[in-house]
C-alpha cells in the first residue's frame, strides 16, 4: 500500500480493504526504515495514530470527511502547527511552538488528513540543497545505500544534534558536522529547500506533502527526488501561518507521486482565506483531469533562453525528447523568447534579501524563540540572540537586504529590481498573449549532484545555479509544475518543468498529466519495511 498513489489509497480506504490505522502504521514503519535520510525535524507519530484511529472510525461509519480523510501527509517545518514545534530548521526557533495552525495545515486537518511530522529544510528556506539545516542535511533516497549505513545510524543519531555553530567560510564550506566521514558524504542531495517533504513522498512515507516555493523550493527537490511538485499561482493558496522567506514570492507548494494527486490536494487547499489579504477573492472551482487527453490544440512554447550554459547533456536530451513527444502527438511546439531571463536571478537576489532583512527583524528574542544571555543592554541582547540564532546564510542575506534598503541605495537596487521583475512578468505575459498555452523547460541544470560536490561552493553560489530555471516563475507569480520524466544513466531522476498562465492550473496540470502518461516514470521502489526487519 506504500506504493499506491493518493487517489488509489483513498479508494482502498473507502472500500475498507485497508484502514487508515493500518496505513498510518505502515507509513510510520517506512519512516523508521528510512530514518537515515533525515526527513523529519519533528515526528508526530502519536498524534498521527490518534488521527488515523478517528479516521478509521469515520470510514466504518461511512462518514468520510473528504477524499483526504485518512491520507498520511507531511508538512514542511515552515508551516505553523498549533502545539507542535515549528523550527524552520533554525536555532532561533528550535523550541518555538506556535499557538495556531497555518491555514494550509488547518484545511488538511479539517479534511481528515493524518499528519506524520514536520519535515526538514534549509534554514528559513534559504537554500537549494536541504543541507543548511541545524538538524543536518536531508539525503536523497535515490541510489542511497541503506544496508551499509544501517548500523552507523544507530550509533550516530542525526536529529537535533545542533551545537557549536562555528562561523563558516563564505567561499568554501566545510562538511556539516552531521556528516561524519568522507565516505558518508557519498550520497546525493535532495534539492531544496523543501527537501524533507520531497523525500517523504518519494520514499513512500506519505501520499502528499506540503512545501513552500519562493524561487523553486518545491520544484527543485521534486525534480531531484522524482516526484510531482506543484507551485500554484501566487494568491491561490493561503500563506497565513507559513513562516515567510519572501512574502511577495512565497507560495505553498504540493508534492505528490502523480499529477492527479496534486489536483486532489489543490482542490482541498486552494481558495480565498480572509486571513491572507493577498489571496484572490474569487472562489476556486475544484476540478479533475480526464484519463484521455487530447493535446492537439495545445500550443507549447520552448523558451530559448533556458538553453543555459551549464545544462547537462542528459537533461537537454530529456527536454528535447519531451518536446518531440508533444509535437508528434499533434501539439503545436514553437520556440519562444523570454528576453529578460538572464537578469532574473540578480533581481531575485535583491528582492529576496530585502524582504528577508525585513521579515527577520522580528526575531529579537523577546516575544518568542531563542534568546541570548547577554542582558547588558537591549542592543547587546539583540546582537547576541541574532548571531546565535541565525546561520551565516541568513545573516548574510539580512546584511545585504539592509544595504539594498538604505535610503541612498533603495532606487539603485530595490526599485531597479522591481522594474526588472515587471519586465520578467511581461516576458511571460507576451508569450502567453501570443497564443502559447504552456511552456516546457528543464527544472534544474542536471540530475541531483552528490553532497560532496554540492558543499564545495557556498549557499549563494549554489542557489544561483539551482534556481536559474525556477525563480523567474515566482517573479511572475504564475503556476509551474515539475513532472518526473526519466532516469539518468546513473539512475537519478530527471524532471521537466511546465509553466502555465495565472490561475490556469487546469490547463497546466492537464498537459502535465499527458506527459506523465507518456513517460511512465519508474518510481522509487524500496523494500517493504516488514521485509527489512
Amino acid at each position, binding site marked *: 500500500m506504500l506504493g499506491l498513489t493518493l487517489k488509489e489509497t483513498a479508494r482502498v480506504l473507502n472500500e475498507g480493504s485497508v484502514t487508515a490505522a493500518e496505513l498510518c502504521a505502515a507509513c510510520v514503519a517506512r519512516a523508521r526504515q528510512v530514518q537515515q535520510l533525515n526527513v523529519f525535524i519533528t515526528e508526530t507519530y502519536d498524534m498521527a495514530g490518534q488521527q488515523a484511529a478517528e479516521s478509521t472510525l469515520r470510514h466504518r461509519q461511512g462518514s468520510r470527511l473528504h477524499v483526504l480523510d485518512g491520507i498520511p501527509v507531511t508538512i514542511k517545518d515552515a508551516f505553523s502547527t498549533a502545539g507542535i514545534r515549528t523550527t524552520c530548521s533554525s536555532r532561533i526557533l528550535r523550541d518555538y511552538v506556535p499557538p495556531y495552525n497555518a491555514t494550509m495545515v488547518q484545511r488538511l486537518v479539517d479534511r481528515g488528513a493524518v499528519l506524520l511530522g514536520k519535515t526538514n529544510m534549509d534554514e528559513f528556506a534559504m537554500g537549494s540543497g536541504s543541507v543548511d539545516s541545524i538538524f543536518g542535511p536531508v539525503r536523497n533516497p535515490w541510489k542511497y545505500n541503506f544496508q551499509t549505513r544501517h548500523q552507523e545510524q544507530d550509533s550516530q543519531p542525526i536529529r537535533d544534534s545542533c551545537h557549536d555553530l562555528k562561523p563558516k567560510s563564505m567561499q568554501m564550506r566545510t562538511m556539516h558536522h552531521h556528516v561524519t566521514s568522507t565516505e558518508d558524504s557519498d550520497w546525493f542531495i535532495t534539492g531544496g529547500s523543501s527537501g524533507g517533504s520531497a523525500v517523504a513522498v518519494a520514499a513512500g512515507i506519505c501520499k502528499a506533502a506540503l512545501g513552500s516555493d519562493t524561487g523553486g523550493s518545491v520544484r527543485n527537490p521534486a525534480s531531484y527526488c522524482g516526484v510531482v511538485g506543484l507551485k500554484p499561482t501566487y494568491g491561490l493558496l493561503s500563506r497565513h501561518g507559513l513562516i515567510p522567506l519572501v512574502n511577495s514570492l512565497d507560495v505553498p507548494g504540493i508534492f505528490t507521486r502523480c499529477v492527479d494527486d496534486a489536483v486532489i490536494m489543490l482542490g482541498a487547499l486552494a481558495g480565498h482565506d480572509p486571513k491572507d489579504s493577498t489571496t484572490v477573492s474569487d472562489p476556486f472551482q475544484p476540478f479533475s483531469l480526464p484519463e484521455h487527453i487530447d493535446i492537439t490544440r495545445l500550443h507549447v512554447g520552448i523558451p530559448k533562453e533556458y538553453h543555459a550554459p551549464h545544462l547537462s547533456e542528459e537533461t537537454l536530451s530529456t527536454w528535447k525528447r519531451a518536446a518531440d513527444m508533444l509535437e508528434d502527438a499533434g501539439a503545436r511546439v514553437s520556440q519562444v523568447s523570454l528576453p529578460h531571463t538572464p537578469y532574473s536571478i540578480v533581481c531575485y537576489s535583491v528582492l529576496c534579501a530585502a524582504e528577508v532583512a*525585513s521579515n527577520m527583524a*522580528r526575531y529579537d528574542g*523577546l516575544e518568542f524563540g531563542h534568546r541570548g544571555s547577554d542582558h547588558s543592554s537591549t542592543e547587546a541582547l539583540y546582537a547576541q540572540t541574532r548571531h546565535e540564532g541565525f546561520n551565516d546564510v541568513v545573516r548574510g542575506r539580512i546584511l545585504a537586504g539592509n544595504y539594498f534598503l538604505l535610503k541612498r541605495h533603495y532606487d539603485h537596487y530595490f526599485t531597479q529590481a522591481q522594474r526588472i521583475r515587471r519586465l520578467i512578468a511581461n516576458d511571460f505575459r507576451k508569450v502567453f498573449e501570443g497564443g502559447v498555452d504552456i511552456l516546457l523547460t528543464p527544472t534544474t541544470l542536471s540530475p541531483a549532484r552528490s553532497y560532496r560536490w554540492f558543499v564545495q561552493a557556498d549557499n549563494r553560489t549554489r542557489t544561483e545555479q539551482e534556481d536559474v530555471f525556477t525563480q523567474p516563475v515566482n517573479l511572475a507569480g504564475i503556476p509551474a509544475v515539475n513532472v518526473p520524466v526519466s532516469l539518468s544513466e546513473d539512475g537519478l531522476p530527471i524532471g521537466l518543468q511546465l509553466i502555465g498562465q495565472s490561475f490556469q492550473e487546469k490547463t497546466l496540470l492537464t498537459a502535465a498529466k499527458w506527459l506523465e502518461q507518456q513517460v511512465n516514470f519508474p518510481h522509487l521502489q524500496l523494500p517493504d519495511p516488514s521485509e527489512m526487519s
Partner: protein
Amino acid sequence: MASSAHKFCVERILLSCRRSLRTCSRSYAKAKTKKDHTSPLPGGWQGRVGLEIHAQISSNSKLFSGSQVQFSAPPNTLVSPLDASLPGTLPVLNRRCVEAGVLTALALNCHINRRSLFDRKHYFYADLPAGYQITQQRLPLAVNGHMTFDVYDESRSQRQVLKSCQVRIKQLQLEQDSGKSLHDQENGEVLVDLNRAGVALMEIVTEPDMVDGAEAAAMVKELQLILQALGTCDGNMSEGSMRVDANISVSRSNEELGTRAEVKNINSAKFVQKAIEYEMQRQIRVLEGAGEVEEETRYFDWKAGKTISLRDKEQRHDYRYMPEPNLPPLIVYTDATSPRGMQDSVVNIDRIREQMPELPDTTRRRLVEKYGIQFQHSVALVGEGLVEYFETLIDVKGKGRDPRSAASWVLTDLLEQLHKRSLTFQECSVTASKLGEIVDLVGMGTISKSTGKKSVVLYKAHMLQLTCPTKYIFCWIFSQILGLLFDGDNRSLSQIIEENEWAQIRDEETLGRICDDILEKHTELVEAYRKGNVKVVNRLMGEVQKATNRCAEPTVTSRVLKLKLEEH
C-alpha cells in the same frame, strides 16, 4: 440687563458671519494663509511650527488584527499572534479604521487618494515586536487638506477671538501604534506591554503654517473637537489617544525656514504651547549667540518646563522603508466606481460623506444663531462637549426654557458640581431632564432665586481652558439641590424641598411675622432707617434670608419689609 445681553448677541452673530465670510475668502486664496499678524517673538524673529498629530482611531479592534482595544486593561491581555509578531502571521486591514480615516480626511478638506499604499518602517525597539511599523509613507490615504481655527485671548475673562487661522494639512495616513516599554531602573529591566501594539492611528501632518505656541495649541484643541464630533478619536490626550510632535524653527523675518528641531510626544494642548514657546526662545538664544540649531529630536520635560535633547541616534536613523508585501493597495471607491455586488464590503467615500456630522465651527455659529446665546457660551458649550446636554435641556415640549439662562445653568452650576468632584462630563449623573426640572422649579417660583455666594472665582480656578461668563451668580437653593443629586440623593425633588424646608416663602402674612421678628432683634437698624439710612434695608433683607434659609421670595419680602419699617 436682558436687553443689553440681547444686543451683545446680535453683535456676536454679525461678527461670526463676518468671520465665516473671511474663512470662505481665505479658503479660496489658500496661498495667502497668514502673516497678517506679527509673531510675538522679539528681535524680528519669526517662528514656524508644523505638527504631526497621532490620533488613536476609536475602534473596537486593532488596525490589522482582531484584538480588542481598551485603555488600562491588564498588561499583555489584548495581544493576538499578529500583535506579538509571531512568525507567519499576516496583517488584515480593519475596514472600520479606513472609514474613520476617510471621514476625518473629509472633515479636514483633504483629497482622498483612491489608491494608497502601506509601507514598513524599520527600527529596533523592545515595544516594536515586528522590528517595523506598518505605515503609509509613499502614498498616504489623504493629502492636501486644510483646517481653520480661532485663537482666543486667554488673558481676559471674556473669551475673545484674537485671530482666525488656517493651517494646511499635508497628509493623513493610517499606521500602527507600538507597544509600551516600562524601564525598571532598579532591577535593570525593561517591561513590555503589547496591549497597544497594533492599535490604529491616524497620523495627521500639517505644513509649518503656525507661528507660535498659542496657534499650535489652538489648532490642537480645535482638531480634538473635530475628531470628537466625528467620533473617530476620543481626543483624550492624557490617556495618549492623541499625541503631538511639533517641528519648530525660527528664522529672521522673510528669510527661509530655519533648521527645525522636533519635540516629540507632547501630551496636552497646554504643553504644546509651553514646549513651543520654550523651544523658540532656546533657538533664538542659540542663534543670537552665533550658534547653530541642530536638527534633532527633543522631548518636553513638563516639570522643568524645558525641551531636552534626546541625544539619540534616532535622527540619523535610516528607516529602510519597504512596501508592505502582505497588504494589497488600499482602494476606496465612490458611488460611481463602487463594484457591483460588493457595495457593502468596500469603503465608499460618498457613503461616508453622508455620515458627516456637524463640525464644531458650524455648531458654534448655529447655537448663536438659533438660540441667541452669547458667543462665549457657544464656544464654551462646544469646547466642553455640552452641546447635546444643552439642547436637551432647552428642547422640552411645552416647556420653552430660556436658552440664555439654560446656557448659564449648564456652564456654571453643572460644571461647578463636576469640577468640585473632579468628574468629566461623561461621568455626569444628573441628566439634562433632571436639571430641567430644577430650572422649572425656579421658573415657577417653587424655590427661590435668592442668591448665595458668588462662585465665579471658584469656577474660574477650576477652568484653565474655559473662560466663563463673569457676571453670573449662583442661585443658592438651586446649587444645594443639584449638589444633593450629584451626591446620589434619589428622593424626588418635592421631597427634597419639603424635607429641607426649601420651598419659597411668598405668603405675605408669614413674611410679615418673620420681618417683625427681625425688626425686633435689630432695633439699631430700624433706628438708622428712621434717620434716613435706607441702605440698612439690604442688611435687613439679608437677615430675613438668613432666618428663612434663603427661602424668602425677594420681591414680596422687600415690599413687606419696607411696609413694616414704615409701621415701626
